[in-house]
Every structure is written in C-alpha cells, then in structure tokens.
C-alpha cells in the first residue's frame, strides 16, 4: 500500500491510498481473426489482410472462430475464473474510423468468464487480486496521422483480430503490485500459448483506472482511466503522476473529474481525451447475427485437463525436483521458451544444475548482447546437453566450452563434431604438460620466486602463459597442480 505522506511545502498533509484497477487487452495468437478467415499476422502491407466482414461491407456477417473461445476458456480457467457456460455477444455502438461497422462486437451482459483471481507475492505475504470478468471482443483497425494532408489514414488489417479483455477488481494499491500483476498475466498467457502478450508489440495493452482516497476511508474516490501506456516504466510513471495530480486537486478543494486521460511518457504527464462529440452511451444490445455460446462441462473439463504447468508451479518444481535456487528457477521459468529448452536439455541427459547454469549464464548473456529472446534460440537441447557432457568428461575445458558455445549459439554446430574437427580437446599427455610448465617456469623466474614466497595470485599469470603455450587446450586443474609440483621441486 503506497501511503507516502504527501507534502506540500513544510505542511504535512493527509495520508492517501492509491486504488488501482486494470483493464488489460490481450491479443490472442489465433491464425485468423475472430469473425472472419483473414490472417492475424503482424506487419503486412496496409489493407491486405481484409475481407468484407472485417471492413464492414454492406451485407457482411460475422462467423465466430472456435479457437478464440478455446483460448478465452484456457485463460479464464488459468486465472481461476468462473465460466459463464451460456454467454453471448453484444454490440458496442460508437463512431470512429478504426471501427468499420461503427460498432464493436464485444460481450457486456454475459461475458465468458467472471470472478477469478491472481495471487501476488508481496512483502506482506500473498495478496489476491480479483478479476472481475474476462470477455471476448474484436480489435479495431489502425489509424495513422498523415502529415501531408493533415488527415488520418485507416488500415483495417488489425480490425477483427481477437482480443480478450481482462478486467480486474480495484484491488491494487501500488505500481509494484500493478507490474507484478501484469507480469503474472503475461507469463500465464505465454505458458498457455494463448498470446505473446508483449506490451511493446501491442499484443498486451493495459489501461489503468486509478483513484485516491484518504487512508481509512471506506468509500472509493472518483477514478480516471489512463491509456497509451506502452511499457512497464510508463505504467509506473503514469501511476505516480496521476496519484500526485489527483491528490493535488483534492488538496486544493477541487474534484477529480471522471475522464479518460492519455499518458505521454516523454512529457511524463497526461491530458484529458475529451470530445463533446463522444457519445458516452454505447447502446449495448445482443448481436442478432451471432447465436449464443453454450459451453459444456466436458469442454471445460478437457481444457482443465490439458492445462500446461504454469510458471509458479514450474518454478517450485524446479526448486524441489532439481534443487535449483529460487532465483535461478524464476529466471528459467520467466520465459516459456527458456523453460522448455531447459527441460529438453535435461531430457537429453544433462544434469539440471549444469543446464540451468548454461541457460541462465552464457545463453542469457548472448541473447541480451544480440537483443534477441529465448524463442529465437536456434541451437538444440541435444547439442547443449552434448556440450555439457564434453565438459563433464573433461574432454574440453571451461574456456573452450564457452568458445564452442558461442559458435553453437550462432550456427547450432554439433559440439562434439566441432571439437573433433578443430582439435580442441584438452591435452591429456602429461609429459607434454610437464615440459610446457617447465618451460614457462624457466622463463619466468620472478614469478616463480613470488609463488614460492606464498603470493598465490601470480599463479593466474603463470597458468595463463601455460594455456597460451598449449593453445588453450590444457586442463586448468592439471596445470595448476603441475605448476605447484614443479615449483616445489
């Protein structure tokens, strides 16, 4: 609960609590749109994934994509919702160019899911955030401003892409809780395979409903809705900014106006999206073109049975079954693709802790460097397991392993074959090792002297020289042993 004392000058004012609810739109990863067979792929040339239905042509009619219902049910069940087994679609009427029919087909009266929850781990323990309802609806097209003509251009590719809207109860009290909630939704949707759910790409969009009230007040304040929040950072800033703005109004004796505000993260401020031409009355009524949906117990049961292991459970299991730390388990399960790769690598024979190290270590490092993500990894689990085995069996040393991994990361080479081909095996001939160490020691009497005096740090230098001489193919522990042995003689 963010109840920082609001200060104005030297006067200490009342304590205010922030009350936050979220409306999150999630783009579903179906192949086709909700009411027609056009592709949902992102990035196509404008108005090329369109048809009479998603462009509101006269005489067009919607046909419901079954996969949308399936995905909505998966999401609802994973978020602990009740299912409205009889549900239907309603028309939400309003005029805007990105809305080809000037009504959006959505669900008001009987949304598909209701009364669910998400559990967050806060400093004060587990906190439940209620989900008021989840409903299916269609996305609108895209509007782009055209400088030349000072007009707007409309592209209907996105019109009709299926969305679920997840409406929370106003149970959150801080930006932290909001971010945690969103991350939970994100990972759940990704694990279910229902959506990529990425803020930056627009496959997840969050509108923040925020009000403030004096701590202890039983009544909610007037809330505002904030849009255009394109990153977690923007969300956090917007929450802070709006909280301050509302408190300032109240402290000044003015009222908070219920309105929609657009957040500008560059300016770190918001302005009201007011238009007297906006009819606030959507005149919802049941869509006569779409028969209602009757969801059977059997359908629900089959979805429940097929629900994959979600992040929290998976992370716990990694800790209990594989002895991973909570930190590592959370990193691995933070990305479904990474978790899957981890599990496949174990299946291919690698020890869990080793696999975890490679994935949370080198893999993430390279991904970050290349600004890529786990789902785009090209090397196979089998190859990673093989690399780990080579290291385990001391065929190669750590540094070599890293080098080979870097190649494997780019081109998915078979590490065993690569090591063989490039003669990267660790040198096993102890005679050659002794000879080389002797040579290096002879060439570095000062270092040897320091070592004899107990300055162990210099061993690194000596080992480095040996390694260089042996073209990196020595076994570091053997080198160290040999140096110590020969120095003592």
């Amino acid at each position, binding site marked *: 609960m963010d109840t920082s004392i609001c200060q104005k000058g030297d006067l200490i004012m009342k304590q205010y609590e922030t009350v936050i609810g979220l409306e999150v739109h999630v783009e579903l990863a179906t192949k086709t749109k909700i009411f027609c067979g056009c*592709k949902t792929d992102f990035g196509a040339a404008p108005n090329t994934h369109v*048809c009479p239905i998603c462009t509101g042509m006269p005489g067009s009619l919607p046909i419901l994509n079954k996969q949308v219902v399936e995905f909505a049910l998966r999401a609802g069940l994973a978020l602990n919702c009740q299912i409205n087994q009889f549900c239907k679609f309603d028309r939400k009427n309003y005029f805007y160019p990105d809305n080809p029919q000037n009504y959006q087909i959505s669900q008001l009266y009987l949304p598909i899911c209701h009364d669910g929850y998400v559990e967050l781990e806060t400093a004060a323990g587990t906190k439940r955030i209620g989900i008021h309802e989840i409903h299916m609806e269609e996305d609108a097209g895209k509007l782009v401003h055209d400088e030349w003509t000072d007009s707007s*251009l409309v*592209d209907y590719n996105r019109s009709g892409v299926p969305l679920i809207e997840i409406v929370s109860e106003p149970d959150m009290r801080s930006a932290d809780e909001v971010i945690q909630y969103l991350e939970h939704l994100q990972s759940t949707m990704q694990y279910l395979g229902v959506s990529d759910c990425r803020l930056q790409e627009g496959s997840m969009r969050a509108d923040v409903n925020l009000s403030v009230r004096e701590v202890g007040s039983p009544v909610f304040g007037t809330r505002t809705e904030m849009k255009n929040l394109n990153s977690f950072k923007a969300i956090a800033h917007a929450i802070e900014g709006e909280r301050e703005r509302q408190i300032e109004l109240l402290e000044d004796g003015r009222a908070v106006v219920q309105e929609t505000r*657009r957040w500008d993260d560059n300016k770190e401020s918001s302005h009201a999206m007011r238009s007297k031409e906006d*009819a606030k009355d959507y005149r919802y009524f049941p869509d006569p073109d779409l*028969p*209602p*949906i009757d969801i059977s117990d059997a359908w629900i049961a089959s979805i429940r049975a097929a629900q994959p292991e979600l992040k929290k459970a998976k992370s716990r299991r990694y800790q209990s079954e594989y002895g991973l730390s909570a930190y590592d388990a959370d990193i691995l399960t933070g990305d479904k693709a990474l978790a899957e790769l981890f599990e496949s690598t174990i299946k291919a024979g690698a020890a869990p802790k080793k696999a975890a190290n490679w994935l949370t270590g080198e893999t993430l490092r390279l991904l970050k460097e290349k600004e890529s993500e786990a789902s785009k990894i090209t090397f196979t689990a089998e190859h990673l397991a093989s690399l780990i085995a080579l290291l385990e069996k001391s065929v190669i040393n750590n540094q070599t392993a890293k080098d080979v991994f870097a190649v494997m990361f780019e081109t998915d080479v078979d590490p065993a074959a690569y090591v063989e081909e490039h003669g990267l095996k660790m040198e096993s001939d102890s005679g050659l090792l002794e000879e080389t160490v002797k040579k290096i020691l002879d060439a570095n009497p000062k270092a040897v002297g320091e070592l004899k005096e107990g300055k162990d740090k210099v061993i690194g230098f000596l080992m480095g020289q040996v390694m260089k001489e042996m073209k990196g193919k020595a076994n570091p522990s053997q080198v160290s042993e040999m140096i110590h042995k020969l120095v003592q003689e």
Partner: protein
Amino acid sequence: MAEMITDKTMDEIEILAKLHLTEEEKEKSRQDLQQMLDYVDMLNQLDTSDVEPLTHIFPIKNVFREDVVLESTPREELLKNAPKEKDGQFLVPKTIG
C-alpha cells in the same frame, strides 16, 4: 406514460446517430418520435414479468468456424468504392488521440 422527448433528447440523439438536423427538421423529428413513443407505450399494457426476451428465434447455438485462413480481398477491390484514399489506406479527417 411515454417519455417526454425534449430538445435536449434530440441533441443527444443527433450525436448518437451522427445526424445533423436543421431546426425545422429537429422539431418535426421530435414530434414524430414523440408520436411513435406514445404509440409504442401500449406495450406496457402487457404483463411480461415472467417472460424472457426473445433475441434469437430458434435455439441455435455454438455456430463456429475452424481457425483456418481464408482468402482475403485484393486491396484494389477493397479501395474501389473508397471516397478518399491514399497509400492503400482510407483517408479521413484527422482523428484525435
């Protein structure tokens, strides 16, 4: 008794329906609407307290299609009837927000 249709009601209806009426038209429409509503008011003579609204005539449900890609419309076809277009998109007056 039916609702009283005032000038304010007419203003709101103009915004909802996106119609522009002259003063004369507005008054005529106001009268028409009032007349209609007074007439429609007779529905209240019927007791419907136990009746479910009939939205769909037949109890059809679960009409679905499979998630399979179908052919889209070629863009030139789509834009043939466009009042104004540019760069393959429909051109409209500037929108806010």
